[in-house]
């Protein structure tokens, strides 16, 4: 009887959607990697971002989320890159 129940449990596992624990893990991994990147970024990042936004707004109508500034280090931690993305509004 125990054997049969085990078999049913195993089959149920194969069939089921991802467990809530694995969902939790995925969500946390994204959050933690983001916060660790933010923590290593220079202090001037938020100010830089808002000033860039001001300048761009003089020329193009963009919303507040249009400017993304990311600070990245390469694998060896030597080369530092400031990755700036500006999303322009749709033409139509």
């Amino acid at each position, binding site marked *: 009887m125990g054997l049969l129940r085990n078999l049913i449990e195993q089959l149920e596992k194969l069939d089921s959607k991802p467990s*809530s*624990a694995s969902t939790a893990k995925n969500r946390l*991994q994204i959050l*933690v990697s983001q*916060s660790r990147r933010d923590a290593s970024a220079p202090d001037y990042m938020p100010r830089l971002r808002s000033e860039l936004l001001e300048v761009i707004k003089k020329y193009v109508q963009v919303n507040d989320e249009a400017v993304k500034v990311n600070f990245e280090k390469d694998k060896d931690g030597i080369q530092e890159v400031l990755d700036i993305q500006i999303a322009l509004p749709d033409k139509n």
Partner: protein
Amino acid sequence: MTEIIVVTSGKGGVGKTTSSASLACGLAKAGKKTVVIDFDVGLRNLDLIMGCERRVVYDFVNVVHGEASLKQALIKDKRFDNLFVLAASQTRDKDALTKEGVEKVLNDLAAEGFDFILCDSPAGIEKGAFLAMYYADRAVVVVNPEVSSVRDSDRILGLLASKTKKAEDGERIIEHLLLTRYNPARVEKGEMLSIADVEEILGLKVVGVVPESPEVLQSSNSGNPVILDEASDAGQAYTDAVARILGEERPMRFTTVEKKSFFSKMFGG
């Protein structure tokens, strides 16, 4: 040499004070002269968990402000000769503690020959939590297998690596995770983050895993830290954690579901 250990977590209610009390008793039992300090000014609770609430006359803030001597404020534990408690103030607010004041008390305790000073941090990341971690040599980050606790632990690990004296001096605090309220049966069902999940997310190994168990509440009800309940799983898990902090290698226990044998199923073992 005195070692300062902060017990911290960011999130409240994960078991900081419970763990501080048990680790302090465990270190004392292992023969180390130990003092445990409640940094939660305004919300004193360590005295209750340690079972010495009726013997608090002077507190940590009184010592910092020179209103009482260290000797007057240290409460000697009734179970261990080499264990002392320094209670938090119940009436003052968190600004009653200063960096210089805390440093002086820690130096005076070191001069008294303490082997370990445990700092029981308040929840949050405000002044009390900051002061509890600032002078630490080692940190025990108490974490539950639950999303908000894990995220807050990551935040605390970031602060330990940047806002402490060791970090400012270009050194590193020794960091440990202490996983509490662990329920192997729920992990097996995929309902709870596993030890490996938490270790992987935070990039740090656990120094102990304390299973969720009814004895923890029973112990705090009676003011006897759960580590003194040698028959309980939680108590034994804390004993193992203390041994690991002292450098011993021990395998993890109570981390898998006990498969009941035919015999115990039949007779309710």
